[in-house]
């Protein structure tokens, strides 16, 4: 297959009008089978693609089309890939990182906005988009005085539509709840999965850390807050099942470490764990090179690896193959399975980002907290 950019170049340097036509007749990045063409038009000394794909050089230079102001780069992207990136435009010796002006797809995270390239076959899952038929759950703020944390803990509660005090609901506790709300559309996802009967009607506690790098990596105070303060408070205030299979703890990155380490400190309390791209760094010998923030993580994971134990009943683990943590997660899964816990592990062609975690929510939540799909035949 001849790529569109090659066709444009075939007859020599294209005219500005031909470039205009090329840009308006395609959407960018241009996906043609496994090839993805990135394009930038403008005066510059150099243009680079800065992406977050572990395994590729993190900076890939564009080539200028001779005699024009059009820059381009062709990358091979496996099917269903999703890649977040920025463009670095270098002019007068200064590089500036910008979002791709030709690409309308953006993702947001706590550090800002990235452009997103979708490989062939990737589509934003429709269950992550607002469905007018789905009844909306409500959000309510709660403040729980915590002796363990030495402060008031703010929690956002998601209450499913038509919550009834006569029923008993499972509880999902989410680390980095604010980020899941803002960057992973978790409220819409919950509304949709519950509406489609794929996930049980669930009360969700979205927790908000203050010092996440201190609270999350195997911190006993954090675990005590979760297990001895937050969950008992929720179970006294709301119609919750109050059983291990009705308690699910989840998180991404350090939040996944916080989830597993809390379950480790309170074995049997949380019957369900959802661990996304966990920062499960470990060492077989020597020191980890991931930095001081990871030291308590490494100590915890090393300890877990030396004495693996069944701390929960059912775990859903996911990781992107374009993130460096894929090695740690792949290493952890057989260890978790060896304890007799039921483990499902899913990989995606994606990176360490919130939309990857959003896209895996359906698989995880519908398995850990299954809805009545099997029971309802309207």
């Amino acid at each position, binding site marked *: 297959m001849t790529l569109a950019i090659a066709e444009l170049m075939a007859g020599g340097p294209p005219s500005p009008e031909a470039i205009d036509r090329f840009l308006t007749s395609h959407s960018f990045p241009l996906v043609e089978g496994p090839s993805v063409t990135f394009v930038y038009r403008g005066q510059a000394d150099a243009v680079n693609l800065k992406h977050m794909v572990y395994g590729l050089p993190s900076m890939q230079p564009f080539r200028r089309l001779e005699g024009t102001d059009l820059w381009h780069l062709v990358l091979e992207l496996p099917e269903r890939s999703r890649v977040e990136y920025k463009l670095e435009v270098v002019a007068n010796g200064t590089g500036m990182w910008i979002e791709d002006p030709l690409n309308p797809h953006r993702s947001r995270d706590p550090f800002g906005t990235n452009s997103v390239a979708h490989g062939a076959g990737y589509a934003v899952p429709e269950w992550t988009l607002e469905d007018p038929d789905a009844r909306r759950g409500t959000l309510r703020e709660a403040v729980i005085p915590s002796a363990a944390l030495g402060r008031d803990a703010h929690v956002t509660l998601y209450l499913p539509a*038509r919550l009834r005090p006569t029923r008993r609901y499972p509880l999902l506790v989410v680390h980095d709840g604010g980020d899941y709300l803002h960057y992973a559309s978790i409220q819409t996802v919950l509304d949709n999965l519950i509406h489609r009967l794929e996930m049980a009607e669930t009360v969700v506690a979205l927790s908000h850390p203050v010092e996440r790098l201190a609270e999350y990596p195997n911190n006993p105070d954090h675990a005590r807050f979760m297990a001895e303060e937050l969950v008992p408070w929720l179970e006294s205030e709301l119609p919750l099942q109050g059983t291990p299979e009705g308690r699910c703890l989840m998180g991404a990155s350090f939040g996944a470490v916080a989830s597993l380490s809390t379950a480790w400190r309170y074995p049997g309390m949380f019957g369900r764990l959802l661990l996304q791209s966990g920062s499960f760094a470990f060492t077989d010998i020597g020191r980890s090179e991931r930095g001081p923030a990871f030291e308590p993580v490494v100590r915890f994971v090393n300890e877990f690896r030396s004495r693996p134990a069944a701390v929960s009943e059912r775990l859903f683990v996911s990781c992107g193959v374009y993130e460096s943590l894929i090695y740690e997660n792949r290493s952890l899964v057989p260890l978790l399975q060896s304890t007799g816990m039921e483990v499902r592990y899913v990989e995606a062609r994606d990176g360490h980002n919130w939309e990857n975690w959003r896209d895996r929510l359906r698989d995880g939540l519908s398995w850990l907290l299954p809805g009545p799909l099997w029971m309802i035949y309207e």
Partner: protein
Amino acid sequence: MKNQRKRGTARFFLLGPQRHRPTVVTAVRALGLSGNDLRVATVTAGWQEREGEDQELRDHLVGSTTNLELYRRAERVFERDPELATAHRERQDLFRRMQAAYRARLRFAIDACREMGRGAELGDDVYRIEWSAAMDAVRDLDRAHLERVREAREAFDERWRPTERDAVARERKEIREILERVNVLAIAGGQVAVLGNRLRLFGIGEMWGGKPVVAWSAGAMAIVERIIVFHDSPPHGPGNPEVLDVGLGWCSGVVPLPHARRRLRLDDRERISRTATRFQPDRCVALDDGSGLEWTGSRWEAWPGTRLLHSDGTVTEMEPSSAGRTPATQEVA
């Protein structure tokens, strides 16, 4: 003979989903009832808290309809009789645990069946024999599970005698009065376990008096002998049909599969073959929009568009009759 006795001469209609293509009125007309002659008792307990939102159904039936309100009545019973409510909750917890244990065993039994099937497909006689044994193991597991559920139900009924308790008896008296006035019982779909439990709690089977029954989706599933729940493609991976419970057994010989087009992989011959073989001698009938089965008092007849799952893995539409409904006695008798 047992089945014959259960079916009796009553008329039953087992219909597909009604939301997009309502056909309840077609069934009622087939009974020769309309206008002032038509008096229907409806059961929408499977809709749970939405039980009362039945205006669309009333409009469709265009006759006198009375909702038996079995869900609301059950809630009232549990409020008035906390001892029964606790016992009921504990029994449901027991059923949930039994189902989880059965499901775990079933997974391995089905996997064995599938693996033997792959060998058999290649023409290996050894695998063909083993496939048969593996299928027997699945059927034994289904049978044993159903028996345990039946025993648990009987033990519950014997200990708590629900229909004799004051709170239930009061509701039953009112229900009986309604049932005496009507000439058709219409049972809607919804949550199949909730629906079955409410029909059973109030002993509707003992009171309905052999009048015609029109049931759709979960309603159809609840009134046959075994309640089979199914979804070939749940979001978390491949699902295996499960025996959930003893049905009310008002009619027999079929496994109704509503929403089959959406819930079953009808083009997967191995799965279809396995499902059809597993539930024999009952016949697995796909009940999609507009389709239906009718028990005439002596045989099952199928409506146009009604399809049957065969043990060779095919799915075929039953042959239409000149009357517009299909005699299907060769398959579903």
